[in-house]
């Protein structure tokens, strides 16, 4: 297996409290470059919460306290000196509900770039095309780039949202159940797209869909009530899990 791959993120003993309620109870795990890692587990076990600790989106909730370290490229993102704005450019995020801006498709994709000060029309045009191609939606939208992103279907909107993240050129992409609002065909297209993207990006994916996890991820982590129960190669998790809870969950006996 690809064990020699470099680790890009390593989380050590991450605890997270919503007020007094401990939602993450000491998570230690790392993520390898150019792999797809799937986070699975029953509802409320803390998958989204953990994903959002990786780009510090939980900071926005006032009652949250976090302890532990998360190293990205050997730098602790929870160090006081961290610039969260720069961090989120390196670690992009795609949400469960497609959330395009109510502007044109073109503007959606280049929003990040334009705000970063890029004005050259040629560079912007090129970024739009590349990102939309990577998100496998260029052919569908190339003739209507000036139309509102809201006029697209949910699956198309989600791919525009992915293109919008790609345009910022992050190293890591976090996806929180990106296909749960989509039909099987759109989901399949997004899965194929993720497989293509992993050559250039590190992808961390929360999913409730076992087929999705087993089909596209390299490694899978099983969460339960704020604990990381088991983390291994996807094949091992699905065919030969060590823990009883993992086996029960995967075979659909609870959760």
């Amino acid at each position, binding site marked *: 297996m690809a064990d020699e791959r470099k680790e890009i993120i390593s989380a050590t003993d991450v605890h997270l409290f919503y007020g007094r309620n401990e939602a993450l109870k000491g998570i230690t795990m790392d993520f390898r470059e150019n792999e797809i890692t799937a986070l699975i587990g029953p509802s409320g076990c803390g998958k989204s919460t953990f994903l959002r600790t990786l*780009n510090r*989106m939980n900071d*926005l909730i*006032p009652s949250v306290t976090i302890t532990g370290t998360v190293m990205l490229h050997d730098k602790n993102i929870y160090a006081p000196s961290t610039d969260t*704005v*720069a*961090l*989120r*450019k390196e670690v*992009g*995020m795609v*949400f469960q*509900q497609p*959330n*395009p*801006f*109510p*502007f*044109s*498709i073109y*503007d959606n994709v280049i*929003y*990040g770039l334009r*705000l970063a000060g890029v004005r050259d029309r040629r560079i912007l045009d090129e970024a739009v095309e590349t990102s939309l191609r990577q998100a496998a939606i260029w052919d569908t939208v190339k003739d209507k780039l*000036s*139309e*509102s992103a*809201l*006029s697209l279907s949910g699956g198309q909107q989600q791919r525009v*949202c992915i293109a*919008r*993240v790609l345009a*910022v050129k992050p190293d890591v992409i976090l996806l929180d159940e990106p296909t749960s609002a989509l039909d099987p065909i759109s989901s399949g297209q997004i899965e194929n797209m993720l497989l293509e993207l992993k050559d250039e990006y590190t992808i961390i994916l929360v999913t409730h869909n076992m087929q999705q996890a087993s089909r596209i991820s390299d490694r899978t982590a099983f969460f339960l009530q704020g604990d990381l129960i088991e983390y291994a190669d996807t094949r091992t998790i699905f065919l030969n899990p060590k823990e009883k809870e993992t086996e029960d969950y995967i075979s659909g006996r609870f959760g």
Partner: protein
Amino acid sequence: MDSKKWDKIATGVLYFIAGVMILILAFLLIFILWNGLPHVSWHFLTSPAKSFQSGGGIGIQLFNSFYLLILSMLISIPISIGAGIYLSEYAKKNWLTNLVRTSIDILSSLPSIVVGLFGFLVFSISAGLGFSILSGALALTVFNLPLLTRNVEESLRSISGSQREAGLALGLSKWETVLKIIIPEALPGIITGMILGAGRVFGEAAALIYTAGQSAPPLDFTNWNPFYIASPLNPLRPAETLAVHIWKINSEGIMPDASQVSAGASAVLIIAVLIFNFGARYVGNHIYRKMTGTK
């Protein structure tokens, strides 16, 4: 009785009430326009008022109304946008911001005559501005600012949290997210609110009687130096507006054609307010379509 029947009765009653409201509004509009429009002419719109003879116009009052409107909007738009952004995006939930919100709500429900008397005491007397456009504009700001601020706040608040998350997750700072995503998305609502506010200000009389004053000294439309006493732009001259003029003619007008002048002025005022209202819709929709690229 079964619920279907009740449903029918309730719907019928609601239709009836709505119908009565529309009829009253239509009657008012037609009455005012029918009586007033025959007296409206280019001469009426442009010539100064006369106190003792017939044939006076409303030119100066009309100009005063617009000038006052522009001045007060110039003051209140930036403040309301700043305050609205603060309240919606930055204010923490605590007793202080609650107090601010409650004060704004109380302020916005003050009767305008009270605002007028307050303006008289503070701006005209204490600050020494006298009966002047500036006193009037400040009183109108007190009158209008709370509603504008609330409008900005509500418009921003109505933008879903997922848009803020999207911006931040893209690596925008909080301020960039507010400025480049949330405000543009809320802009149609904000502008609609501003134009409606402008209409409210344009038709306001009570807040102006003791602040901008009840006299309209002749203006010299050839001298636009704001420091010249008869200059149209001089902010320290008294300035009776159209709404105040209507009130004044009806209470103490002694020109022979007082009722015609009043009817004509009312028609002009109503038309202006209607333009503001329809304009608000049109501009709001137009901007929304332009921003979002929807056709």
